[in-house]
Each structure stands twice: as structure tokens, then as C-alpha cells.
């Protein structure tokens, strides 16, 4: 339990940092959403600035402390303000539309690449110097290529040149999002290429880490002892060596969950995918500050919750943490 309370304190602190950074950045930097709005609609009278500030709740009224507390109260009520770009839609409603796209696509891709990479890493370590192990240089290269570059080339080859997959977007024009089969079909079709690029690039990291830890674990005496007992290879690999070697990978998975919502940003940009990352990018380029802040807040909170869940999994996987020793 000490482990969980410790982690909870960490996440609470991280959440506080995220919220506070979110609060202070716009106040340190000149210009605000109201001014961006004024610039966007030149027909507005200068007097309208005050009205817009009040409307968006971004004016600098009251002391800094007062602003900070009312900001906190607003967040806890799920009130993230109004998007200037999608006016009059609220930030919350914009997020409700975009979040599922990212969670489903990137979430699935992350889980697939984690499972595939880990299993392949185990096999590569066990059959050391084998065919799988000889793929390592290629994997090293994949790990070092900028993701967007690979994605761009994939788009060029598979979408522009061979017309196997669509160039981008989440679904074809003419479909309305909803729970109907033609739409889902179109959405799946559009998600295959982004998913493959995500899996291919992130799998390499899992595989390399798993292989390296596994090689160290295989050298341990208890693995040798298990073999000497005459246990089958399969049992030794999976329940003796891999069972222990997987722990760093699980811990890494927790951290990589941050990329489920975050790292997808570049992918969504390349594929013009209607998820959170692309929306954040659009918000940044069009100075939609309320939306930017709202998305960042939601991303941070999602990542923190996901990390907490991953901690629980780690707790189940590694009995040592349950005894309260520092991990």
C-alpha cells in the first residue's frame, strides 16, 4: 500500500505541475485569446475586446491568486472555456469528438506493438544469433528514424503511388460518424496505414529492450538451475526467464502510455487524422489558446490515470513492490 500512496502522491504532484504550467504560461507571454480573436475578425470594434475577454473568461480580472483559484474551480467543474477556433463550441465538446479517434487508434497500436515487440524480443534473446537476432541492425535503424519521415514515405508508397490505402483523414467523405457499419468500415480502412507505421516504429524499442534484459536474465543461475532440473525449454523461457525479464518492459509501458495521446501528435499531423494531436496542432497554429490549454490538460490527466493503472499491473507482476520496498 505504501507503494500506491507514494505513486498517488507523485501523480497528484504531476497533475498540479501540469495545471499550474497551464495557468501561468499564457500569463507570462504577451497576447491572449481575446486579442487573437480580435485579429481574426478585423470588423470587430476595439470596445468588443472587453466583451470577448469576459465571454472567454480570460481577462486579467482580480489578483493572480484569485484568478488561479477560479481557474482551479473551473477545471474541477469540467469547464475548460470556449474554443476561439470552433466558436461557440466549448473546449469540452471539441475534445469529446476528437478523443475517441486517438484513444482507439493509438491505444490499439500501442498494445499490439508492445505485445509483438516483447514476444519477439524474448525469442531473439533465446535464439541468440538466430535469424530474428540478425534483424537487429534494421531495428536499430528503425528506432533512430524520425517517425514522421517514415510515415511520409509510407504515405508516398502505399497511398500516393500504389493507391492501396487512403492518403489521410479518419474516414471517407460522405459518411457521418456514428455506430453504423459502413462508417466503421471506412474508419478501419483509414486507420490501417497509420496503425502499421506506429507499430513498426515503436515495436523496435520494445524488442531491443526485452532482448537485452532477457539476455542478462538468461545468464542468471536460477535459469541454469531450471534447465538442469530438466524442465522443458518452453517452460524455462516463458515462466522462468521471460517472467522476470519482462518487468522493465512493463515499467516502460507505463511511461510509453504518455505517447498514446502525445506521440500520436506527429502521426495525426502526417495523416490529417481527426484526433487530439491534430486538433492540438491546429489549435497551436491558429492561436486557439483555450483549446490548447484544454487539450494539454486532458492529455496530462489521461497519461496520469493510465500510469496509475500500469502501476497496479506492475504491483501484480512484481511481488517485491508489494512488500513496500522502493522500486
Amino acid at each position: 500500500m505504501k507503494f500506491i500512496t507514494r505513486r498517488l502522491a507523485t501523480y497528484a504532484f504531476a497533475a498540479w505541475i501540469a495545471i499550474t504550467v497551464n495557468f501561468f504560461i499564457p500569463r507570462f507571454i504577451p497576447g491572449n485569446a481575446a486579442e487573437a480573436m480580435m485579429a481574426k475578425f478585423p470588423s470587430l470594434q476595439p470596445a468588443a475586446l472587453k466583451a470577448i475577454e469576459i465571454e472567454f473568461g480570460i481577462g486579467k480580472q482580480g489578483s493572480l491568486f484569485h484568478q488561479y483559484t477560479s481557474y482551479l474551480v473551473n477545471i474541477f467543474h469540467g469547464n475548460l472555456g470556449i474554443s476561439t477556433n470552433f466558436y461557440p463550441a466549448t473546449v469540452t465538446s471539441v475534445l469529446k469528438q476528437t478523443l475517441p479517434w486517438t484513444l482507439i487508434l493509438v491505444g490499439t497500436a500501442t498494445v499490439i506493438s508492445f505485445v509483438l515487440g516483447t514476444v519477439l524480443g524474448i525469442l531473439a534473446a533465446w535464439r541468440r544469433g538466430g535469424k530474428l537476432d540478425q534483424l537487429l541492425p534494421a531495428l536499430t535503424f528503425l528506432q533512430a528514424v524520425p517517425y514522421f519521415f517514415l510515415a511520409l514515405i509510407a504515405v508516398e508508397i502505399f497511398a500516393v503511388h500504389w493507391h492501396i490505402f487512403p492518403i489521410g483523414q479518419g474516414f471517407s467523405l460522405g459518411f457521418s460518424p456514428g455506430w453504423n457499419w459502413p462508417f466503421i468500415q471506412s474508419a478501419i480502412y483509414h486507420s490501417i496505414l497509420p496503425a502499421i507505421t506506429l507499430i513498426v516504429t515503436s515495436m523496435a524499442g520494445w524488442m531491443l529492450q526485452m532482448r537485452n534484459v532477457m539476455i542478462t536474465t538468461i545468464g542468471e543461475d536460477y535459469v541454469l538451475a531450471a534447465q538442469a532440473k530438466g524442465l522443458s525449454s518452453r517452460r524455462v523461457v516463458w515462466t522462468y526467464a521471460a517472467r522476470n525479464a519482462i518487468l522493465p518492459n512493463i515499467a516502460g509501458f507505463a511511461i510509453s502510455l504518455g505517447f498514446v495521446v502525445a506521440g500520436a501528435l506527429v502521426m495525426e499531423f502526417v495523416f490529417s487524422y481527426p484526433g487530439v494531436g491534430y486538433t492540438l496542432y491546429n489549435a497551436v497554429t491558429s492561436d486557439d489558446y483555450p483549446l490548447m490549454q484544454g487539450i494539454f490538460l486532458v492529455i496530462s490527466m489521461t497519461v496520469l490515470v493510465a500510469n496509475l493503472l500500469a502501476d497496479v499491473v506492475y504491483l501484480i507482476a512484481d511481488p517485491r513492490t508489494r512488500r513496500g520496498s522502493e522500486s
Partner: protein
Amino acid sequence: MSTSVIPITAVPPVGKSRRKFSSYPLKARIGAIIVGVFVLLAIFGPYLAPFDPSATKNTQAYPVGPNWTHLLGTTAIGGDVLSQMLVGIRATVFVGLTAGVIATFLSVLVGVSSGFLGGASDEGLSLLTNAVLVLPALPLLVVILGYLPQASNLVTAFVLSVLGWPWGARVIRAQTLSLRRRDFVAAARETGESTWRIIVSEIIPNEVSLIAASFVGTVLYAILTSVALTFLGLGDLSNWSLGSMLYWSQNGNAITLGAWWWYLPPGLAVAFLGMGLVLLNFGLDELGNPRLRDATGQHKIAGHVWRPADPTPVVRDSDLVKRGLFTRGFAALRQGVRPVRSSVAKGDDVETTIKGNADG
């Protein structure tokens, strides 16, 4: 061939004598060469550039492929791609190294103090480290750079390092915790050395490989992230860098136009630089953990393929076993001394072969 008693150590002998470059793991050597070439290009590249990278031709409306004047072709408005590369590598390497230096300094500062001081300061610093670690870095960078009206390379590097230190700090803290309990630290404390001196001359020298690995890792992260951010249009677009080249090529529809000479060179340059750093890091890993070393060289002993998990190998046709030498050689192998690549011939003295290799 003399038979001397071999001191079996897991760590390669370190001393004043300089190790030969060829004795480092192959991966580390390849990585060091690639990174070295890029550093040289970063220093001298701008002087080698045949054209002004920003020069344009008004008459041109489409990218021209590689030819003898422009070895890597031109952009849509006539800029020389090779010159842009030679000039641009400097900015990319600069961002990577600057962020790497600042972030590594922060990791060492936080990691060592947290691990060595313990108690309340450890609790506080660990809390900070873990909290920054779970913050999603890329969106935060996007938001921060989105607010800044014009993000120069220095600002980008600074923001990257502020978010890039916690991973290294965690690893260094763990190592410091274990070093703190060792005898030589206790001895130093008994002789009345100050905390500051113990940290600087006892703890940190023992963490050099870890600090180096963390530095290389941070440089890689900084380069990949800064290139991605610049590609998104959030970095410094007024200067040439590999990221801004990719941004302008994307902006000029290089891919749709089929102008591969415009977007492939900067992308591949980043990939090679990244690969060099990854290899360098693997090499550093192998220095610290000999079990990871190249399988082809490691698992062949006395001509037998030795799988890491195989039970003690049995060599039937050799008198080595009778002399008890083979098992000792095996033990050396298990402890990480690298055996010779070629198989040991009958009658060869296993001990000297292994020793010679461990020193070399």
C-alpha cells in the same frame, strides 16, 4: 606460452593506460565514427557549402533533380539541397548537444544529491523527478513553443532540456544509492572527507559510463524531438536545420512532386545521426554489461556453439577438461571476459588466450 594465473574480473581493467580504439565493442566504434562525422560536418559544413543555401532563382518553379552543378538537386525555388544540408546539420547538432549538456547536468545534480543525501531531500527530489517524468513531454513542448512568438534554436534546446532530465536522474539516483553503501565510500567518510569531496571524487567517477549513456540518450531524444517540432513548424524556421529542410520540403509538396532528392537527404541524415547515437549507447551498454556483447564472438568456445542458457558445456575430445582449464575458461566467460573470436585449437592454452583478450 606462459601459464599465468588470470585475475577474473567482470569489469575490464581500467587504469592510466589508454585503451585501444579497436578494443571497444564494434557497435560503439561504428556509432562513434558516425557521430564524429556529423560533429565534423557541424563544425566545417558551412565552409564546405558550394552555394548560399538561401539563394533562390526567380526563373525556377519546380525542383530540379541531382546534376553536376547541384549534386543533390534543388528545391522548388532553386535552393541548393546539398548546401542547405551542410549548413543545416550545425543547427541540429547544436540543439542536440546543448540540450544534452544541460539535461545531463541537471540529471547528475538531481540524481546524485537525491541518492546521496537521502531522507527528506531524496523524497522531495524523487517526487519532482517522477512527476516530470510522467508529464507528456511532446504536447507540453508544442504548447510552450506555440506560445512563444519566435522560438530560436537555443530556446528550443533549453525547453527540451528542462523536460529531458528526469530519466537520467532516476538511473543515476539508483546507482548512487547502491554506491553509497559500498565500503570505499564508508572508508572515505571515516577518513573525514567532506560530503562534497566524496561526491565529486568517489561517487561521480564511478558513474561515468552511466552519465555518458544518459548524455547520449538525451542528445538522441533532443535531436529527434527538435526535428519533429521544426517539421511541425514550431521550431526555428528562419535558419537552416535538418528539421526546417523537412518542413520546407513538406510545404513545397516535395513528396507529391516526386522530388526525392529534396526530402530524402535530410531525413536520412537524421536517421543516420540517430543510428550513430543508438549504436554508441548500445556500445556503452555492452561495456557495462558484457553479457550483451556480440553473440557471434561470445558463444563459440573450443569450437562449440555455446548458447547463453545451455548447461555447462561438455567437451569430449579435449584434454582441456582434464586439466580443469576449460571450466575456468567457462567461468571467465560467464563473468563477462570476452573470449577469442576464433575457436581454441587443441593444445592451446585457454588461460592465456582469455587473459590476453581481457587486457586488450
